[in-house]
């Protein structure tokens, strides 16, 4: 589970390509680019459809022209859709930011403990933690609704904060643990020699070193909580007062409204924009989160 996975992905020198290529190698290079470009087209087709059709008004033009590029962009769908969605978008932002920060903090403390403190049964506890990443939401759904009821959380957005914190802890712990495992023990020893306790060491030595890891974890948590639909629909019971981005979107694009192509595509695009922005600007960290959360032996 090395934290240098990303560096391995990122650093392949392409010097070899600069040597003069013989015929067969040139053929393979062209072949590769053709393959890569084809896959690129496949990968962007769905998002292209979404973007193109969001500029064609509320119902879109005829369905058979839906592949066409919007030469005369029409913004008619954007205003109403935004008015419809903005409440949910801000609500989502509110709970997602909170749950990401809380789970990142808990994850960093846990990760530190698992990385630097070997106690009896720590392997067992760690394995139980790891399995937490794989537990399907469904397995705790029913008790969770009852718990929320009992704790008087029902009807408040904190049901989602709570759910995402609990579900975020295993993956955050794992990412932080892998990161901290790479920090040499000598640093901690040095701190201890100087008379600092574990808490102090954590606060003054480890935390300042963890900034990149916090970015990774926050992005990861932000994206997964933003995109979550199952918890959202389950725990809010579909109540419009608590609608978040995905549930509001599902309400707009739901079965009765499928004729409003332009509208639906615009709404989908608006809901995707925040995570896409994060991805475009912080994609490196996103990739790092993916890889260090993947437990490669």
């Amino acid at each position, binding site marked *: *589970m090395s934290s240098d*996975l990303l560096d*391995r*992905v990122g650093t*392949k*020198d*392409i010097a070899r*390509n600069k040597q003069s290529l013989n015929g067969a190698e040139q053929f393979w*290079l062209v072949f*590769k680019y053709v393959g890569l470009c084809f*896959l*690129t087209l496949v*990968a962007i*087709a*769905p998002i292209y459809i*979404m973007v193109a059709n969001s500029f064609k008004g509320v119902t879109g033009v005829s*369905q*058979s022209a*839906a*592949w066409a590029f919007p030469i005369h962009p029409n913004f008619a769908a954007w205003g109403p859709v935004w008015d419809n969605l903005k409440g949910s978008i801000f609500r989502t932002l509110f709970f997602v930011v909170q749950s990401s920060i809380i789970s990142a903090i808990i994850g960093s403390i846990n990760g530190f403990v698992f990385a630097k403190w070997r106690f009896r049964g720590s*392997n067992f506890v760690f*394995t139980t*933690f*790891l*399995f*937490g990443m*794989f*537990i*399907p939401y*469904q*397995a*705790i*759904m*029913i*008790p*969770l609704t*009852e*718990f929320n009821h009992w704790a008087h959380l029902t009807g408040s957005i904190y049901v989602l904060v709570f759910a995402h914190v*609990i579900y975020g802890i295993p993956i955050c712990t794992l990412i932080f643990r892998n990161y901290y495992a790479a920090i040499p023990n000598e640093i901690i020893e040095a701190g201890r020699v100087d008379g600092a306790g574990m808490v102090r060491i954590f606060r003054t030595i480890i935390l300042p070193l963890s900034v990149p890891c916090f970015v990774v974890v926050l992005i990861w948590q932000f994206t997964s909580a933003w*995109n979550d*639909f*199952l918890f959202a629909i389950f725990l809010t019971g579909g109540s419009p007062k608590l609608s978040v*981005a*995905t549930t509001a*979107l599902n309400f707009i694009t739901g*079965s009765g409204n499928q004729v409003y192509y332009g509208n*639906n*595509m615009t709404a*989908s*695009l608006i*809901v995707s924009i925040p*995570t896409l922005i*994060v991805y475009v600007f912080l*994609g490196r960290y*996103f990739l790092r989160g*993916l*890889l260090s959360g*993947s437990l*490669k*032996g």
Partner: protein
Amino acid sequence: MAVFVYGMIGWTVKESLGKRTNSYTTAKGLVGLKNYRDLFSDPEFVHAFQNLLKFTVVFMVGTLLAGLIMALLLEKGIKGEGFFRSIYLYPMAISFIAMGTSWRWLMDSSRDGKATGLNKIFFDVHLGFLQSNWYSSEKGAMYAMALPAIWQMSGYVMALFLAGFRGIPDDLREAARVDGATETKIYRHILFPQLKPTFLTVLIILGHISMKVFDLIYGIASKSYVTKVLAIYMWQVIFDFQNYAKGASIAMIILVLIAVAVIPYLIYVVKTEEQK
């Protein structure tokens, strides 16, 4: 926190053995495994289970192949690698409720002159016979449903394989090349065996995602019968019929399906790491 989650699982187990089969009853007490036995004689459950298996097979094989091909194309380093990598990975960042809108349209079942989406492309390039009913067809719905799933996850698999390839020292290849091995042989006998742990990781990740698949199918086809899988059925049972006992039993089956694969894997991973 861990205690809390496992406590909740215990609660679900209890619920699944209990009598709360509608919202009016307050019946307490346990009925043993009756709910589970009932499930396996429930044709709708069996249908959802078969659907899930079909989906899983196509999704896992498809994503593995697509991701591997992407990684193979990029693996040796090529100009523009960063660009291609970002493009292949972005689907991971988008919610399936949002992408579902697009895919619903791409996999629209209208044909020929009325076609849109993929059918339109096939029709226009004179491959009309490739047109399909996609996710609304009776037999192939689950296979069609695997397409968006493959689309979403193959970038992830690519990243894992890429990391795997880059973790193999270049000396190994060079040595094999000096010994006169062809490129194909190098991949088959040197590189792929080194990637065994990566393959295992990929299979576990894809498998567990597949077992709990919900958003993707719900976003495209809602509760349609032909694409029903366990998670959708569970949702229906709880939300529409308030049958908590049955819902909990389905949830436990999903959990067990995941656990039998994941727990041995985790133990293996933690052990191998211990040895380092």
